[in-house]
C-alpha cells in the first residue's frame, strides 16, 4: 500500500485502566507491541477491545496508566513513558484509526472527504495523495459520488483511505471486515499484508477467523477488561481468534 515513508513505531500500554463511573472497562492492561508487529485483539462483545483501541488512538483518556509509542530504537532501549496528553497528540501523528463506524461524511463525495481530512492533517501535496489513495482503494472512478450512495464495503474503503492519509506507522482497526463482502475481505487482507510487510504496526480487533486474522502474528484475548491470553505461537493465535466469541 502507501505507508512507506514512516519510521516504525510500537505501542506500550503501562497498567492502563479505564473506568466509566463504577464500571471498569479495562483493568491492569500491560503489554507492548513491537514496531512492525501485527496483533489481533479478541474477546466477547463488551470485553474492552474498542476502548483499548480508542485509548491507543488518543480518543479516550485512560483513568490511569501510561501509553507510549516507542520507536524501534526506543523500544530496544526501554524508553521511559511520556505524559498522557503528549502521547495523545503523538497518537494522532503516529496512528491511523479505522473504527467500527466509517468516520466519513455521507453528504460529501469520496474525494471531498479525503481532501477535508488531508487538509486538516496538513498532508503535503494533499490533492495528489488523495488521488493516489483513491486509486489504491479502487474508488478513483467513483471519487465524485456522494458517500451516501456507496455500499458498506465501498464506505469501508474510503474509511481505510482516510486512515492512511498521513502514512501512519501504526494502524488501529476495530473490526475492519464489518460489512465487507468476501471480495472486500480479500482486498482488505491484501492491503493490510502490504502494510505489515512495509513495517507498519497493526493492532486490530477481530471476531473469528478470516483472511485478515491470518495476518496476525500475535493474539491477545480480553475478558471483562482483563488480558486473559497473549500468545505468539501460531496454533494458539488461531485458537484464540477462533474461539473469540465462545
Amino acid at each position: 500500500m502507501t505507508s512507506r515513508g514512516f519510521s516504525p513505531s510500537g505501542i506500550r500500554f503501562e497498567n492502563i485502566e479505564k473506568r466509566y463511573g463504577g464500571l471498569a472497562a479495562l483493568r491492569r492492561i500491560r503489554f507492548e507491541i513491537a514496531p512492525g508487529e501485527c496483533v489481533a485483539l479478541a474477546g466477547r462483545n463488551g470485553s474492552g477491545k474498542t476502548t483499548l483501541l480508542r485509548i491507543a488512538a488518543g480518543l479516550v483518556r485512560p483513568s490511569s496508566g501510561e501509553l507510549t509509542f516507542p520507536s524501534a530504537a526506543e523500544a530496544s532501549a526501554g524508553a521511559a513513558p511520556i505524559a498522557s496528553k503528549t502521547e495523545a497528540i503523538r497518537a494522532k501523528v503516529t496512528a491511523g484509526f479505522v473504527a467500527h463506524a466509517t468516520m466519513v461524511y455521507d453528504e460529501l463525495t469520496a474525494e471531498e472527504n479525503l481532501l477535508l481530512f488531508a487538509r486538516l492533517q496538513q498532508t503535503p501535496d494533499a490533492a495528489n495523495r488523495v488521488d493516489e489513495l483513491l486509486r489504491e482503494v479502487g474508488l478513483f472512478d467513483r471519487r465524485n459520488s456522494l458517500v451516501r450512495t456507496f455500499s458498506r464495503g465501498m464506505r469501508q474503503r474510503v474509511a481505510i483511505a482516510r486512515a492512511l492519509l498521513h502514512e501512519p506507522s501504526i494502524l488501529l482497526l476495530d473490526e475492519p471486515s464489518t460489512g465487507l463482502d468476501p471480495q472486500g475481505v480479500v482486498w482488505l487482507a491484501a492491503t493490510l499484508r502490504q502494510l505489515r510487510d512495509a513495517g507498519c504496526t497493526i493492532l486490530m480487533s477481530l471476531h473469528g477467523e478470516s483472511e485478515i486474522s491470518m495476518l496476525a502474528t500475535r493474539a491477545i484475548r480480553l475478558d471483562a477488561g482483563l488480558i486473559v491470553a497473549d500468545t505468539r505461537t501460531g496454533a494458539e493465535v488461531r485458537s484464540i481468534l477462533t474461539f473469540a466469541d465462545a
Partner: protein
Amino acid sequence: MSLLSSTTALLGKELRTEFRSRELLTTTVVFILMVIVLFSFTFDPTYNESRRFGPGLLWLAFLFAASLMLQPCFLREQNNDTLSALRLSVSDPFAIFFAKLIANTLFLLFTEALMLPVFAILYNVPVLRVLGQLLLVFFLGSLGVSIAGTALSAISAQARMRELLLPLLLLPLLTPVLVASTQVTIGLLDASPYIEWKGIGFLVAFDVVFLTLLWLLGEYLLEE
C-alpha cells in the same frame, strides 16, 4: 495559521453539507415564518403595538429557531463517528467549534435576513432607515446564541436525554442575550430611533467572554 486553515476547511464542510441536505435551513425558515405570520394574524397589531411587542416576538422566534438549528449541530457528527475523525485530524480542537459557530451564525443571519422583510411588511414596521444598526444587533445577538449554543450542543450530544438537555441548558443561559438584543431592537424600531449602547456593550462582552471560555475549555467538551 493551523487554526485558520483548519477552520476554513471545516467551515467549507459545514456549508457544503448543509446546502446539500438543507436540513437545518428548511426547518428553521419554515418555523420562523409560521411564528411571525401566525402572531401577525392572531394579534393584528397596530403600528404602536408592533413597535412595542415586535422586537420581543422577533427575538423569541429567532431563539426557538436557533435551538432547532443547534440541536443537530454535534448530533450529526455522531452518525458515522465523524467527530472522532475530526478530533484525530485537527491539531487545535477549537477549530471544530470555531467552524461550527461561524456556520451557525451564518445560518441564523441568513434566516433572519429572510424574515426581516416579512416582519416589516406584516407588522408595518419601517426597518430600512435603521437597517445597518439592525444587522449589527442581529450579528451580535446571533453570535452570542451560536457561541453558547454550539458549546452546549457538544455537551448535550454526549448525554442520554440529549433532546431535552439542550433547551434546558440553552434557554436560561441565553436569556440575558435575548433581553439585551430585544432592548436594542426596541430602540431601533422606535418612532425616533436610538441605539441602546448599554445593550450593545453587553452583547459584545457576552460574545468575548463565552468565546474565550470556549477556546479555553473546548478540548474538554469534546472528550469521550
